[in-house]
């Protein structure tokens, strides 16, 4: 039994997103997605959520989406983080921010602690099934939902995801990165927060 669905490479999935990201989009990245996103370059409207409180990227994204309704806010999240804050899916849909896009990278494991199975992934469940994150998002009331299992399909579909009416929840099956470590903070937090706020003000 595999620890996760066979999935696309995380860094290539992020690279495809980066191509379609508009200059005025805010991108919030957490955990493994943050680690790989930083390798692709920097942007003044990147909020690399490191250090973070695991699971809270979706909530931070909601706050930004409400405060900046004219901007698209993209949250790059993991399946383990999603499980830590499932209620945030309901909080988000209660507010219905049309400008919020959640992209969830599902590898079925807590990658940065040694790839232990999550309770939502195949290897972490007695029944050997997989939690239906897309079903959870639909039931919570996300206006647009997508699921991509392969890179080519994602590359072709990413623009449609970003342009859909939000709140949007997108699930990507990704392969765990072998031996992956946690993301490093790219600099002092206060200074990064100050620069980010200045970039938002334009």
């Amino acid at each position, binding site marked *: 039994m595999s620890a996760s669905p066979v999935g696309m490479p995380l860094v290539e999935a992020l690279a495809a997103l980066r191509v379609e990201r508009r200059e005025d989009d805010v991108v919030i990245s957490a955990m493994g997605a943050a680690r790989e996103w930083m390798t692709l370059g920097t942007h003044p409207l990147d*909020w690399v959520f490191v250090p973070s*409180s*695991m699971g809270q990227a979706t909530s931070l994204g*909601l*706050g930004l989406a*409400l405060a900046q309704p004219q901007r698209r806010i993209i949250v790059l999240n993991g399946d383990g983080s999603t499980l830590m804050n499932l*209620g*945030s899916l309901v909080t988000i849909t209660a507010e219905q921010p049309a400008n919020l896009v959640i992209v969830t990278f599902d590898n079925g494991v807590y990658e940065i602690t040694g790839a232990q199975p999550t309770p939502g992934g195949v290897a972490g469940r007695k029944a050997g099934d997989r939690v239906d994150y897309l079903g959870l998002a639909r039931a919570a009331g996300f206006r647009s939902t997508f699921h991509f299992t392969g890179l080519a399909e994602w590359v072709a579909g990413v623009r449609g995801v970003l342009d859909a009416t939000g709140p949007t929840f997108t699930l990507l099956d990704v392969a765990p990165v072998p031996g992956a470590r946690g993301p490093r903070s790219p600099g002092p937090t206060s200074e990064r*927060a100050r620069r*980010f706020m200045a970039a938002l003000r334009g």
Partner: protein
Amino acid sequence: MFSGEEVASLFARCDVTHVVTVPDSTLGRWEPANQQAGIRLVRVCREGEAWAVAGGLYLGGARPVVVIQCTGLFESGDSLRNILHDWKLPIFSVIGYRSYLNQETLPGDTALIFTEPTLKAWQIDYRFITKPDEFEVFARHLETCSREGKAGAVLIAEGKA
């Protein structure tokens, strides 16, 4: 302790834009007045979310206040730590102190043991308000924290009018 109108008026005076909240039977009564004052309510499912939502609002230029019960303060730990201490975002909070004024209703309630030590452990600059005539303490602390861009809290005793 305080009317919704008093609190909403203070929030409006301090340019509060959003109240991020899980209500209890005291704090929830403020909701209509806050909404009438044009302050937007964001209802979260658990209190840990409230700090991150408020952090995002603040980064985006809004001025949120977190309004939760002390039991929600206990739930908030890691998220509060991250927003107030890692990122040093100046989020103000109003914490309802469950049954403090009516302790016989919940004999053995350990919220009475842990609330203030928890606020102290998280190094939150708070004021403890136990009487209706202490509204000015609340107002002054919120005004000072807003003006100086500092995090802070008021702990409001609940359980009796």
